């Protein structure tokens, strides 16, 4: 099968194309390391992925959504940054927050901002959270064969004024949740959230209505995860989305 036909990375295409033999024979072609087929390189071939870890928690309330995320970026056992914001504003009522590979996260967030702008110009209105949720799902699935290494939560206020959280896997399967946790500390955080907002063994979910209580819970959860997860720490970034817009604040947590 001719795979070239549906590759759109033009830069790479040029690199992989075999150069025409020069008509001037005395010019010696310098071998370029990129000219070699990537598959012949190391075992396993081309690897664009690295996990920069990080944890993010989102909790929906009656008329707000709260995101609590850490700000650490690491590679292996090294910390690359201690104040990276993994949450991006998409519209006045909607933010996206992700854990995973920073390069992919930034690309994805930038792309979504571009798409929101396109939407605004075409339809003369701001996209709702519901349509952004579907959009993000399709965007992620569009990279089914070279997925974004990003684990996302899309949080916003829906048309009824209720908080909503949409959780995704890497290839764009998504679901509406009332709370979610993604990233390196997701396994540590999920049971705590269950306990606080569902109560074990109950599937009935009611939305909390007090911002300050939820904020404390969010901070506590990130703090607890930071105790045990080496990739989580430094600062907790709280983003609150409600009808008045978006507020961001940061607090230091353990840095070791």
């Amino acid at each position, binding site marked *: 099968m001719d795979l070239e036909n549906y590759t759109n990375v033009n830069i790479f295409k040029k690199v992989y194309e075999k150069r025409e033999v020069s008509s001037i024979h005395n010019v010696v072609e310098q071998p370029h390391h990129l000219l070699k087929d990537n598959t012949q390189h190391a075992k396993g071939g081309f690897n664009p992925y690295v996990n920069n870890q990080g944890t993010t928690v989102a909790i929906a309330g009656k008329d707000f959504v709260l995101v609590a995320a850490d700000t650490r970026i690491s590679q292996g056992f090294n910390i690359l940054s201690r104040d990276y914001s993994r949450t991006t504003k998409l519209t006045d009522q909607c933010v996206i927050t992700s854990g995973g590979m920073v390069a992919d996260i930034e690309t994805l967030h930038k792309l979504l901002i571009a798409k929101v702008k396109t939407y605004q110009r075409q339809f003369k209105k701001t996209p709702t959270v519901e349509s952004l949720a579907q959009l993000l799902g399709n965007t992620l699935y*569009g990279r089914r064969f070279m997925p974004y290494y990003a684990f996302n939560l899309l949080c916003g206020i829906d048309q009824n004024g209720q908080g909503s959280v949409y959780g995704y*896997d890497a290839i764009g399967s998504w679901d509406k949740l009332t709370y979610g946790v993604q990233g390196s500390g997701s396994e540590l955080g999920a049971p705590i959230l269950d306990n606080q907002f569902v109560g074990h063994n109950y599937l009935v979910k009611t939305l909390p209505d007090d911002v300050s209580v939820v904020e404390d819970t969010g901070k506590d959860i990130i703090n607890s995860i930071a105790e045990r997860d080496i990739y989580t720490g430094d600062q907790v970034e709280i983003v609150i989305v409600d009808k008045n817009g978006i507020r961001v604040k940061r607090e230091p947590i353990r840095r070791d």
Partner: protein
Amino acid sequence: MDNENFGLAKSFSSAPVLSISPHTNFSQKEQTDIEHELNEQVGTTGEYVSEGFCFKLAPGQDQIGFMRSLKEKAPKLTDFAKGTTTLAFEFQEGVLVAVDARATMGAFISSNNVRKVIEINDFLLGTMAGGAADCMFWEKYVAMQCRVYELRNGEKPSVAMASMMLASIMRQYRGQGLSMGTMFTGSDKTGASLYYIDNDATRVKGRLFAVGSGGTFAYGVLDTNYRYDMSLDEAVNLGIRAITSATFKDSASGGVVRIYHVTNHGKWNLIHDAIDVSELHYQFEQNKGHTGRGNEGKPNKYL
């Protein structure tokens, strides 16, 4: 449909608008003014142009090798939502679909309340087993194609045709790493019918299927109690029963049961939305006089 601006949503959603073939290359397309402007502003050249319906591939020749080695390259990436018990069977009043609601990533339960029946449109249903994203995306794609067919031809496509669309897509992507095992059911002029389609492009018309990791356990209950001339009530109870016992034995299934009924005259109904399987298990066991903990006949030994 040669106007490529058909449907304003084109540049916004990744949904295909031009061709039934997902392989069409849109990269040669001219960019609209807005796209130009945005590319300058945001600097997403290339990324943005590849909109439409063109999957971005890894640079290099060995795409399949790339997909296969994803697991080592990006550890958590391939832990897509997986694990299921879904079942569907034909009986005299149509087709009954019963599913559980658990999504697992490795051993971790990512959700206990997933909607595994995809309501494609008002006469088609698809179930979800394997990669959640693959099922959801392609079944929605089929929904769109069905609508296009309806607009063009003034009548709804048959279930056979709609299921063939999905099977054709799976054939095109065979060996590329998609993961899907779906029961495609719906009701048309000829009544309700049931197909099984998977990522190897298998498409089987049949009477009784159970798909997913808990499917083998569900078959046990189904095959024992299945009769074609069941009433709807009996069928619903059988569905619940089979899912409950499968979720008990299989750790990757659980959560709640959802039951759909596809009638013989062109519509489906949601019969039960979310019954907790754990409560059902205790209820069934206690009806038998057991405690539900599975320690009957064992000495009550603690140490």
